[in-house]
């Protein structure tokens, strides 16, 4: 134990930082900062690059197991070399650019998409000492960079000069914009409760445990749970994942805005989608699931970045599980779900969060009243709005001739 370091600051915990300081030490003074940040960029790309590779394999294996079949197991041991095989395939596939397409935009779309989704990795606190860039308003920066991907998707759809791609581009815009609102609105209560816009601040606010058992994570408060659910539904829509994968709906629009892409550009689109998914899950972990904090005090000895990874993988498996089960929504149902269900719920959630933080100092017995009112404020609008949303939709009883 290094004397004076806060508890839980074991050698393993500081290992990445020590490694970086040792490597950077060889260089003269001014170059140290540049080399340090370059090293960080390489680390992020390496970690999330391989995570993307094995996430595609995990997706295909889990989807296969759900469908009672083994999934890829021919390339390497248990199919572990499958991502690299896909990578080689994607690199060697011919990259066709249709003659009628706008070559500049057609090329720029995947590049822009990858660039914007990579930008968002800069501010997520992966561990106690692993914060690439510790901005004061990192949450604001994260969502600003995240929304730029919509531009790239529309660029891809419009530049391919293909009817299906055009339809998909329109759909993508409608979907991504209408889900940006609930995404942000579900984050505002967290900022309100923790009082800071910086990701590390939010994680710090979620440290500690109540009665040494229940961690003080946002998700264990009524408005936090509702906010987490809204955030996850919106994250599903933002990253074009299953119930909302309208832009590239295979059964209707062949491959949507990806119709005219092939070869490595096609792979780039998928890489960007997975990066987006990882980034949004990372931010969900940071905001709602207590970032890199351990769930129990006695588990404190495990390094913080391991806890961040466990929570991130849990969310990603949830994404895959939902993709394996649910059919797709139609574009008008999707936007109605956003505007008439998620946005009002998020606004009400804002009110409950305000009430929650104001009623924090209430004495003992009033705490029960506080919980009751908060739960009522969350459940009430949910039941009312869901009745309106599913008016007339229920399994029917059939007569027999």
């Amino acid at each position, binding site marked *: 134990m290094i004397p004076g370091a806060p508890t839980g600051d074991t050698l393993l915990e500081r290992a990445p930082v020590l490694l970086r300081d040792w490597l950077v030490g060889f260089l003269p003074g001014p170059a140290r900062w540049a080399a340090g940040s370059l090293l960080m960029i390489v680390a992020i790309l390496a970690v999330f690059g391989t995570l993307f590779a094995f996430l595609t394999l995990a997706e295909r294996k889990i989807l296969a197991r759900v469908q009672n*079949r083994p999934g890829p197991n021919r390339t390497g041991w248990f199919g572990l070399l499958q991502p690299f095989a896909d990578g080689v395939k994607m690199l060697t596939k011919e990259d066709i650019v249709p003659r009628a397409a706008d070559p500049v935009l057609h090329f720029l779309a995947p590049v822009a998409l990858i660039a914007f989704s990579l930008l968002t990795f800069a501010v997520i606190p992966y561990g106690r000492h692993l914060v690439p860039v510790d901005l004061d308003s990192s949450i604001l920066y994260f969502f600003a960079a995240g929304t730029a991907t919509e531009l790239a998707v529309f660029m891809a759809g419009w530049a391919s000069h293909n*009817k299906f791609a055009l339809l998909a581009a329109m759909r993508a815009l409608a979907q991504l914009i209408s889900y940006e609102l609930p995404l942000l609105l579900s984050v505002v209560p967290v900022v309100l409760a923790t009082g800071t816009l910086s990701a590390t601040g939010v994680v710090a606010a979620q440290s500690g445990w109540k009665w040494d058992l229940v961690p003080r994570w946002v998700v264990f408060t009524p408005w936090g749970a509702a906010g987490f659910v809204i955030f996850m539904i919106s994250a599903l829509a933002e990253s074009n994942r*299953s119930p909302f994968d309208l832009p590239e709906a295979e059964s*209707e629009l062949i491959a949507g805005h990806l119709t005219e892409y092939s070869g490595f550009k096609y792979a780039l689109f998928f890489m960007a989608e997975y990066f987006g998914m990882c980034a949004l899950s990372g931010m969900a972990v940071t905001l709602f699931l207590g970032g890199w904090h351990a769930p129990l005090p006695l588990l404190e000895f495990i390094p913080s970045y391991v806890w961040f990874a466990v929570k991130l993988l849990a969310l990603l498996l949830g994404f895959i599980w939902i993709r394996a089960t649910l059919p797709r929504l139609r574009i008008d149902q999707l936007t109605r779900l956003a505007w008439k269900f998620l946005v009002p719920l998020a606004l009400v959630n804002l009110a409950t969060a305000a009430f929650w933080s104001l009623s924090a100092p209430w004495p003992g017995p009033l705490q029960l009243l506080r919980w009751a009112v908060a739960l009522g404020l969350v459940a009430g609008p949910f039941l009312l709005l869901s009745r309106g949303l*599913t008016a007339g939709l229920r399994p029917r009883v059939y007569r027999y001739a």
Partner: protein
Amino acid sequence: MSLSPSPLFSAPGPQVRAVSDEFHGDLLEVSMGPHHPSTHGVFRMMATLDGETVVKLKPVFGYLHRNHEKIGEGTSYLGSMPYTDRLDYLCSMTNNWAYALAVESLSGQAVPERAQYLRVILAELTRLLNHTCLAGFLLQDCGASGTPLMYAFREREKILDLFESLSGSRMMCNYQRFGGCRTDAPPGWLEAAAALVGGYGAFLDEYEALLTGNEILMARTQGVGRLPAALAISAGVTGPMLRAAGVDYDLRKVDGYGFYPRFEFRVPLGAHGDTYDRYMVRVLEMRESIGILQQALRGIPAGPIMDPKARLRGFRAKPGEAYGRIEGPKGEIGFFLISEGGPNPYRYRVRPPSFINLTILEDLCLGHSIADTVVILGSIDIVLGEVDR
């Protein structure tokens, strides 16, 4: 970038529909097919879209046309039997039975009891197979990434194994003959069939738990593609689509062909005639088929499976004509045969249910979005081998 209308679009479409044909600047003509992931084969829909909603929709067939009926006229009666497997290649047993029924009514042959029981068992197994696959394809069109389809195919493989151990081939069974069936059930076949049918109820419960209550599926299918009963009757729609529109017309009850009057089963009817009703009517029909199968497997007698007087080679029907029809999984499949006494039929006509059920595709799709046209087409359940013949 002018959207010049291709000659096919400017073909004289019917003025009877609400939309006039002259070309609006902002309409988008999209050709869905013949190479499209969700058209169940080489089938093309020339859709004219106003934004996302369909304004006009012209189905185009013929990509798989090989003039099955001309081949039928050039081949002997027995020679056409393997070709009937290729009509609706998902339900080869019911195609065989319809053709055998037509030839038997043309030549007046009798069929022994055991063969009739075998035919009912195989037809109901085919109905299970077809309806399970349909639910799988319908969900695949709605976007579920293959999970319901894989469960459907897992069950379908078990039924195809039964067909293979009986007739020799999984899908191209060529099993029925005029006056009975070709081979008897091998030892252990009836027990395997009973075991499969016993377990099918549990599979259906799990399948319905995954699908029927699913809010997204209900949102995507309820109220979509509503087919009024009067239009269904006039347009000659038959099978589950017709019963989903609330019309009580099931050939197994109406014609009472084969030994169906001996079995006690009910015919489910829908009330709204939309895509969800078409899905649910098929699921309920599967449950009825399980009932029929259990009764048939219990009651099957021993005995010959082929009419002893039936001649295999050199079969010549007496001059005359006959129209035999059965309740196939997709609707009424019928064979109209005219014989002039020769070894080949003079006229060999197939009444394809999915071809005629497509008559109302445009009426169902008008006003819906392009995502709905895919779901509506999926609920009509077409197989292009039968549509194009």
